[in-house]
């Protein structure tokens, strides 16, 4: 069963901070990381990215890698500028009160797994 951002947002009770209209996107996998270059090197197109970073550069990274969205963990607050840029670049940003580990566990349970691809 393919999952959309909407499914994930509902199941994990995410606070959708921007990109509400883009939640029909299919989530083709996931990547967790807080080092931007590492995400640039390893995340796969269409994945959802789980991170604790909140500054504007996360949007640039997600956009460059064509990720489907960002989940900010530990209830952190994305900066205003980040949300603005995310709006411009069509990158949904959602906040979870859970830790990276717990978010990943839940996504795994939902069946969000990395398939084939770049």
């Amino acid at each position, binding site marked *: 069963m393919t999952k959309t951002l909407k499914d994930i947002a509902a199941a994990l009770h995410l606070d959708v901070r921007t990109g509400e209209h883009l939640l029909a996107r299919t989530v083709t996998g996931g990547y967790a990381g*807080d*080092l*931007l*270059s*590492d995400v*640039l*090197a390893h995340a796969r*197109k269409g994945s959802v990215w789980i*991170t604790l*970073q909140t*500054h*504007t*550069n*996360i*949007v*640039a*990274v997600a*956009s*460059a*890698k*064509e990720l489907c969205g960002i989940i900010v963990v530990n209830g952190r607050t994305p900066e205003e*500028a980040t949300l603005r840029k995310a709006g411009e*670049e069509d990158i949904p940003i959602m906040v979870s009160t859970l830790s990276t580990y717990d978010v990943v566990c839940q996504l795994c349970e939902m069946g969000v797994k990395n398939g084939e691809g770049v």
Partner: protein
Amino acid sequence: MKSNGVNRTLQAARTQELIYELKVQQAMTTKVITVEPENTMEDLRQILKLHQLSGTPVMNEGDLVGIVSVEDLIRSLLEGNGSEPVKQRMSANFVTLYADEPLVHAVQKFERHGFGRFPVIDRKTKELVGILTKGDIIRCMLQRLEIDFHEQEIRRYKPSDWFAELESDRTTLGLRYLIQGRNFQRAGEASSKLKQNLRTLGIAPEAVRRITIASYEAEMNLVIFTGGGELSAFVEPGKVTITVVDHGPGIPDIERAMQPGYSTAPDWVRELGFGAGMGLPNIKNCSNELKLDSKVGEGTNLQFTVFT
């Protein structure tokens, strides 16, 4: 035909061309709602209403036997007989179109017969494959004109064509972006703009992705480690070359800097998620050619090429 402008004449000419080019099967509706001869006119009324149709083919065990329209229905209702079978009212003398006929035949038939719709049948199997109304024709032509328009837009931008038209021994399109050092708010803007422009130029998405990632890493290094500089992209047939130049402080040991994991990023930068020591290796992985020159106290010159 009268016309009051060159543009309109051109448009008209194009629509005329289109009705010769397009085939009936490209315009027809393939999901055909049909009725059977034994259905009552009351059944017909409900079916027409439900699907918002003004007529439908009548099929008897897979064979097309007639056409019945809303006019037939009205006449039947006026005579107060909703329970009579469709076969009583349908026209058995109907005109059909073949799926592979040009639309111009359909247009002529609409004019000649004054019918609202034509069943479309396959020339070989003689089976009903669709139905064509004037509305279908208009929709199909409009879609086609829109596609034409988009293709024209893309053609206007397609670099391979300009390159072919501009006569020189080597034509290069250059895009230059200034990068401010230490400005984290604007960091990433250059590579983001570059990405948009490369897309507009019609460069393959996969190549654009690699160029964007490599440019972003280079841009961030300028923002973090230098006082700023310049990122330029040179677009040529078959490749894009990016040069990133700054004026210091320079890299003392290039070989070491290229190692994955090596980083001199200060702690406060690491907290922002930089400093994995993966930037330069990422650039190398994304590019087909890479050259890095640096002189301590003078500056760094990075050049990489991505084949497109």
